[in-house]
């Protein structure tokens, strides 16, 4: 197989072809296909129970797919036991061996490959230096801090130079501050080792910050695979729009549709102009779900003229119902005349500091920021506003 220009196709580091995993009658992983080129930081993002751990474990060799194929560097590994696969895994609780020192933990995999003693020593010193813990070799596992354990768990895998490193929510057990720090550090380690990382998480911010590519998974299926920007700015499904980032969410019906966009009426009667998501077409009368991100809504006091460049569509007024102060992530909850609560990101401008509850507020957002998804009959749970 070769491309028309004669070059051979570069094998993907990891490829899944229609992988299915069933437990009894329950389908945990439903026809997943993916291709990951070398050197990618690839995340699988999904709520707990969506099948992401099952998928990762099949790649590692713990659990065989019911059907489909898993290929590493173009070779099928479905018949290969976990100890012979060129992938290593960082477990959710790291699974460092408590009966061994740090150096013995790292040496474990090398000794299985019959590496010479001197070579093992050299490689341990090398990898410990790379993760910034050059003197940790003789320490016991319970003498390490959470962040150090994290790095040792990665070093223990990376010293084996796997084709793909699998990470199963390894930051879950860390406290918030350390988690923020480790996000950046993991990304740096990945580019330093230049290895393909497959990272699973339910935390959208981890996925968005670190990844080159993110797959959003729900109920055993990939909803969308794309860069973090694509997922955030152009979600293809209502699930992705709701799961990645925050959104105001309403239900409504299409009252007008043309080539440039749609006019929709929400269930409470507000008229909005928006666009059909994913370049689709919506028919007049179709039931839709409408997503507007709090950060794409501009607010001002009534009477103030909107600054130049601020979209003039979808103007509404309301009363400031509540202020949720959280530094840079502060939100204002605005109650419209129709009784809907709209969550709006507070601008960082000085004027926003003096907003008080009960103040009258004008707000507006562009039609391109108002995404309408056709409501599928399966998604019948009541729509609500996500603050």
């Amino acid at each position, binding site marked *: 197989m070769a491309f028309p220009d004669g070059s051979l196709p570069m094998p993907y580091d990891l490829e899944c072809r229609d992988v299915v995993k069933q437990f009894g009658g329950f389908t945990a992983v439903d026809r997943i296909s993916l291709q990951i080129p070398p050197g990618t930081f690839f995340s699988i993002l999904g709520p707990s129970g969506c099948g992401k751990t099952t998928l990762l474990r099949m790649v*590692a*060799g*713990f659990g065989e797919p019911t059907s489909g194929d898993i290929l590493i560097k173009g070779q099928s590994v479905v018949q290969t*036991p*976990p*100890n*012979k696969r060129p992938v*290593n*895994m960082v*477990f*959710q*609780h790291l*699974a*460092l*061996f*408590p*009966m*061994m020192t740090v150096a013995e933990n790292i040496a*474990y*995999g090398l000794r*299985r*490959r019959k590496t010479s003693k001197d070579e093992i020593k050299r490689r341990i010193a090398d990898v410990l230096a790379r993760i910034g813990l050059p003197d940790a070799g003789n320490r016991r596992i319970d003498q390490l801090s959470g962040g150090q354990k994290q790095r040792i768990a990665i070093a*223990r*895998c990376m010293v*084996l130079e796997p084709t793909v490193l699998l990470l199963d929510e390894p930051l879950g057990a860390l406290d918030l501050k350390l988690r923020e720090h480790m996000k950046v550090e993991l990304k740096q380690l990945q580019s330093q080792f230049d290895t393909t990382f497959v990272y699973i998480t339910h935390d959208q911010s981890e996925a968005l910050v670190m990844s080159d590519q993110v797959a959003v998974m729900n109920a055993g299926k990939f909803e969308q695979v794309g860069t973090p920007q694509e997922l955030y700015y152009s979600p293809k499904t209502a699930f992705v729009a709701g799961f990645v980032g925050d959104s105001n969410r309403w239900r409504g019906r299409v009252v007008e549709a043309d080539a440039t966009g749609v006019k929709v009426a929400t269930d409470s009667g507000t008229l909005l102009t928006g666009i059909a998501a994913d370049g689709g077409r919506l028919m007049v009368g179709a039931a839709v779900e409408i997503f507007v991100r709090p950060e794409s809504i501009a607010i001002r006091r009534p009477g103030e003229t909107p600054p130049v460049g601020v979209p003039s569509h979808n103007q509404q007024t309301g009363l400031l119902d509540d202020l949720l102060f959280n530094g840079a992530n502060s939100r204002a909850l605005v109650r419209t005349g129709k009784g809907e609560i709209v969550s709006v990101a507070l601008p960082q401008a000085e004027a926003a500091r003096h907003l008080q509850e009960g103040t009258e507020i004008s707000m507006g957002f562009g039609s391109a920021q108002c995404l309408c998804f056709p409501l599928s009959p399966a998604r019948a749970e009541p729509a609500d506003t996500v603050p």
Partner: protein
Amino acid sequence: MTARDRRKLTFFLLLTPLLLWVGLLVVIPHIDLFLLSIREKIAPRHYVTSLANYADFFGEPVYVMTLVRTVVMSLLATAITLLVGFPVAYYIAKIAQGRARIALFMTCLLPFWVSEIVRVFGWMILLRETGVLSNFLQWAGLVQGPVEFLYNDAAVMLGLVYTSMLFVVVPLVSTIDSLDNAIVEAGYDLGGNGFVVLKEIVIPHAMPGIVAGSIVVFMLSLGNYLTPTLLGGKSSLWFTSHIYSQFITRFNWELGSAFGFVLLVASSAIVWLALRLSGQSLSTTIGRG
């Protein structure tokens, strides 16, 4: 009475049963036993303090050899119990699920609801010349005439291992169960095969349970009287039967006490040595289990 006094009183009230138990049942009998053992009868009702009883023990090869034999057989019984018990415990702790797990655990426990003597008689019914096994072999035409399976070392070993199983399985199930499955999986993921994972991860993790179980089994075997005597008969040559005969048949309490002390010192020394060799301490094994 102040709060502090009350706390003190509570402490001593709670401590009293323990002190009574240790004092009356452990310390005083052992002091008495020791005093008896260093007493020599020179004429009726005339005693002097001497080490003659200990000299008797070391001077008579049959006593020393019996002790050595008892120790070796007990060590062997411990090793066999461990070899049989480890897979059983691993299966119960890691492989069996839900009800099967409870059922298996109960199956190990069940024989211990009857007394040791009943369990040993059970084996005698199976193994004696006119017993189940012998009759079955004759019925199947594999042997001509009855076969005696009792009264040999193998029968003693069988009885000891059977009697001790539970004391290895229980601590092992609890230590193996506490091993996180992810650690075992990590062992495979990093390139280890089943043998390596067992040797480098499962056994080191289970070491406290292995040592705790071994100590209990070794002590129980060494001090066992019933099983070796009933299954081994006169040829069992178990050290406890010497102690019994000195106390009960020979009425030589002095020599019997000396034997008792020799056994106590020997078993303590062997347990201490085993702990040193395995790098464990009493507080990490018995204390934890």
